[in-house]
């Protein structure tokens, strides 16, 4: 009996190449760990008591208070964890919003071309010419400050680059043989877009998502630092903002905790994004 040699799919190829690199694996572990922390914190299992006073104001890091305490004697460690929840949720929601808007508009523009394309291209060019920080501030004023404003403002301002990429890919793919074949057997536009072409450009979405994730985290920190971000919940940005005053007293721990937490996850996402691109983009293979 002949042994069936199963050919490997793109995805399992990609998986193999991802786990063969130690740094990538480490990054994945970090991202998973952060996600777990965020989820357990969101469920209230950890850091739910971050607002409790646990010791004297500005106690230095010690065995009792692992990352030290802030002005109100709250644990900087708990605040960092709560900040992780905020950061990861912002990354996730923004990423999803970006994907939905970017893919939808990009697919429409690329696939239909003509007037539809013109309108969408005009729209995103105009949109991207507005300085994004101004747009963020504007949105904050409309929906009010808070996590919703952060989700919306970041999600609504960062879809343009993905939209451009998807549009380009759709233009390339729409005249390929497999699409023509789909047309020949009577496939409609909807079917061709979502069943045929989209799976073939999905790798771009994934790469973009992972890169977008860390940009969103950084942006959230900047917004919160400026006082435009989340309100009433700790965020790495507000922790760094606190540090402006604390450094005058020589209290470095809140700054250190927040920046370290941010640096690790942003670096991990960057490495992961790079590896994903290497693994998923056939054009880059072997380079």
């Amino acid at each position, binding site marked *: 009996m002949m042994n069936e040699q199963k050919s490997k799919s793109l995805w399992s190829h990609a998986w193999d190449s991802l786990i063969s690199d130690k740094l990538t694996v480490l990054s994945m572990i970090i991202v998973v760990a952060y996600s777990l922390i965020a989820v357990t914190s969101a469920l209230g299992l950890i850091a739910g008591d971050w607002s409790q006073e646990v010791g004297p104001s500005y106690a230095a890091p010690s065995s009792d208070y692992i990352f030290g305490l802030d002005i109100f004697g709250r644990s900087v460690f708990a605040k960092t964890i709560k900040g992780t929840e905020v950061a990861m949720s912002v990354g996730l929601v923004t990423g999803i919003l970006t994907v939905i808007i970017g893919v939808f508009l990009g697919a429409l523009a690329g696939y239909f071309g003509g007037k539809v394309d013109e309108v969408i291209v005009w729209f995103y060019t105009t949109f991207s010419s507005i300085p994004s920080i101004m747009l963020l501030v504007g949105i904050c004023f409309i929906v009010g*400050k808070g996590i919703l404003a952060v989700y919306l403002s970041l999600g609504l301002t960062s879809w343009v680059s993905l939209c451009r990429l998807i549009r380009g890919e759709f233009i390339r793919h729409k005249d390929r043989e497999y699409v023509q074949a789909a047309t020949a057997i009577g496939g409609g536009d909807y079917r061709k877009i979502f069943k045929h072409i989209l799976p073939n450009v999905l790798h771009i979405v994934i790469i973009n998502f992972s890169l977008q994730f860390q940009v969103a985290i950084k942006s959230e920190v900047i917004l919160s630092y400026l006082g435009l971000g989340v309100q009433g919940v700790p965020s790495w940005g507000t922790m760094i903002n606190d540090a402006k005053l604390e450094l005058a007293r020589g209290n470095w721990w809140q700054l250190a905790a927040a920046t370290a937490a941010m640096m690790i996850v942003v670096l991990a996402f960057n490495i992961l994004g790079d590896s994903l691109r290497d693994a998923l983009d056939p054009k880059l293979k072997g380079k």
Partner: protein
Amino acid sequence: MRFPSLLLFLLASSLLFTSCTKKTDEKGKTLYLAVSSQVKGMDPIYANDRYSGNEVARVYEGLLQYDYFRRPYTLAPNLAEAMPTVSEDGLTYTFKVLKGVVFQDDAAFPEGKGRELTAEDFVYSIKRLADPKLQGLGWWLLDGKIKGLNEWRNKYAELPKTDYEEEVEGLKALDRYTLQFKLSKPFPQFLYSLAMPFTYAVAREVVEKYGDEFLNHPVGTGPFAIRDGVFKQTKKIYYVKNPTFREKLYPCEGSEEFKEKGFLKDCGKKLPLVDRLEVNIIEENQPRWLNFEKGRVDFVAVPKDNFDSVIPDAKNLGNDYKEKKIELLISPALDITYIAFNHDLALFKNNKKLRRAMSLAYDIDEANKKFNNNQAIRAQSIVPPGIAGYMESYKSPYRGRGRKEDIEKAKKLLAEAGFPEGKGLPVITYDCPNNTVSRHQGEYFQLQMAKIGINVKVIQNPWPELQKKITTRNVMTYGIAWSADYPDAENFLQLIYGPNRAPGANGSGYDNPEFNKLFKVASVMQDGPERTALYEKMNRMAAEEVPWIFLVHRQSFVVKHGWLKNYISTDFEAGISQYFDVDKKLKKETLKKL
């Protein structure tokens, strides 16, 4: 990826900033001042906060001013020749306006030459404050006090255009230089109001030329003029010496304490003493402080986080600061910080018990430690120490100090108010300005209220935005401070006088008929033991009614560089920069050491 480039831009601009201010060999003298808040604009009738008022007063002037070198605070003529003559019934005030005073040169005048100031300008400027179309923020000051002015205001509230030609009985220019006020009732604080930026003289031509943009085109008679003639709403405001400023001389008389300290040795010099002003708007404490330490700002209030290192024993400067010839000035401030309730909301309006509970739950001692280095005085009620009406030994029964009994009492009151353990209460929002210390104060309030089960949400706003929210009643609670406009308890009590509600000074909208009645009586009384007794009664009433959560009366800790001369801490800062001087030689030497 636009944020990194924004950061780069900020970095680059801060580098530019350092390279610009390093110049020390410029001609003439320049003052470098730091202001901690954004400035709304340069129109006197909208200058209802201290920061805008101070900027307005560099360019504009009023009939009267506070004598910079006298304590207790005393009024002195400025654009008036002398103090007014007052009729026997105390209702008619006649001023002689100084002759030969000219407005700064501006394109609004014929051939660009500033014309002479006349009594008519004051009539116009004060009518402007009352103009219903303009909604001047200082109207509360004169509301119901000048004969015929309220009628004039009400009449034009209905009509499409305000007619400034129509005469008002109580506000007349008898001739070119004679100005007469007729009051509709005695108003002992009337003269103080003529030293406030709200009533400063503007020129009609300028207002009419620039229209809405007048806010950014200040043209006054004052010692300084804004550079290039336009206020650009930026973080730096430049002024130059007004070349057509009148012969105003540095005073030769003053209180003994200032004579002894040599503050009067510039006697007889022509004001202003410096050629330029550079006002830096720096909202955050640390950048402001670092700029001071580097010598880029001449004086600054000591930020709370640097307090221990700058003033180790809470009285004297640390040695390394003394060596740099830095000097410390400590003085009590005529002010109060507070958290106001919005009394438009039924939640607070009809619920004295809730307000009392919240006040009791707020631990003022801990707040004093955290935010005022334990140097402020706990406020028992609304009137600060230093003026009649303050009661030294009075203790408010609703002043929380973090003691166990305070919390228990607060919980009990909260239950009686209908919200046992906070159940049934909505989330209470707290609005505050946009800087780290204000946010911490908000978070502190949040933590204090959590102790009795009340949920508070902190919202930060830019300063002009916060003020707008308060005047449009778009807040639940907010944290703010009030500094005296004039040294009289009336100026504090009027903050909770019902008819003064926003856009007047009563931002919280507190309205209590009983209090209003007392206020009405006291506000027309001359200074004396009877009035003081009434003030005290109202002050006690305020403490028991808890219209706000009273926090502290602050102490000001200001440090200045040795090269800045003639600086005195005062509660009334309008116009004082004309007396400042800079010792350039000392500055050059000191800068090397910084």
